[in-house]
């Protein structure tokens, strides 16, 4: 049986122009990396939207895996701007192999 350790997985949905704000916060929290996934459409309190890369009003999903401690640092850094920047953050425990990486 492979040994696994528990880490936090955090996913943040953000407007594409704001992705760099989020990834900067990730880097500053000392997390080793992040990955950005494209998003196609969605709906929320502000109504529905579709990807519109031309007008820059599309969204992206940023995912990062971090230790409990760094994950907390990141969520504390982002909490004040979650509402103002319209970010959606979810966080849960995952098992990873080679836990020393994160």
């Amino acid at each position: 049986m492979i040994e696994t350790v528990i880490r936090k997985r955090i996913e943040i949905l953000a407007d594409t122009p704001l992705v760099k704000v989020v990834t900067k916060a990730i880097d500053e929290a000392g997390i080793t990396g992040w990955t950005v996934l494209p998003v196609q459409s969605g709906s929320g309190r502000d109504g529905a939207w579709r990807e519109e890369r031309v007008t820059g009003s599309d969204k992206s999903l940023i995912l990062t895996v971090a230790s409990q401690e760094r994950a907390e640092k990141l969520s504390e850094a982002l909490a004040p701007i979650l509402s103002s920047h319209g970010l959606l953050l979810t966080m849960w425990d995952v098992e990873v192999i080679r836990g020393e990486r994160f």
Partner: protein
Amino acid sequence: MDVSALQTFTSPVVLFFILGLFAAFVRSDLAIPEAIAKGMSLYLMAAIGLKGGVAVAESGLSPLVAVALLAGIVASFLLPLIAYVVLKGFGKLDRLNAGAVAAHYGSVSVVTYVTAVEILELSALPAAGFMVAVLAAMETPAILSGLMLAKGGNDGEKGNRGEMLREVFLNASVVLLLGAFGIGMIAGPSGFAEVSPFFQAGFKGVLCLFLLDMGLIAARRIMASRSITWRLTVIAILLPVFNGALGVLVGTAIGLDVGSTAAFGVLCASASYIAVPAAMRLALPEADPGVYLTMSLSITFPFNILINIGLLTAFAQAIAGPAGALP
């Protein structure tokens, strides 16, 4: 005016825009993949930049070019002031949103300009090649004045300031427009001949499909919109008329030919919906895209394409007098 207005509505370019509006309003699922739309917008900017540069390589640079550039920069800087006052007063927006919207109206829409140039050519009133440089020059000053208006004295974290300026001045469309303009100037007519089947012959067709997409996007946005009041609708229609008329007066005053004057009017009348929204999302994340994008993209843009280009062309012809009609 009658003639050019009619020509507007039989041009495939404008008809495809109307088809896009229509398809969205009847809730058809017609959609252009966003990678294609983005590719077409890059193509249009490269093509218009190249053509402008080649035209300048042929005609040479005159003092008029410098004057036009200066007029454009000043207009882009100052037009947001007028907009801001109207948006806060009549439009009842708060400082933040008024500043964000104002930035859009000071800046320009490349596609509105391109469509105007096509329509002007149909009317035998071509705009000068250097107007592309004016277009590029007008994109960004408005972003700065809009931000100053929105933030008042406190311009936030100093650290981000330089970063922001760099991004504003090196944003994709400015770099591509000016880069292609420079390439056109260096390559000249003979170098352009090699690539003209792609950049020249295909241009109007691509513009048709791009406007089809813009029609779809503009109409879908306004149908989903929840933040637009009748006051803002009025502003989104009257402000471009006012700004455009101002532009025509300035263009005539500095001695532009009729086509270029009309094109300058259109630049002043048009509102950005590509470069400025992205900058605002980053610099003023609290401002509501539901307000600024919907106004510029879903109201002002169609109004300019369908009506205002015709109006401003007629106005430019009228004040130029009979002599100016066929320069």
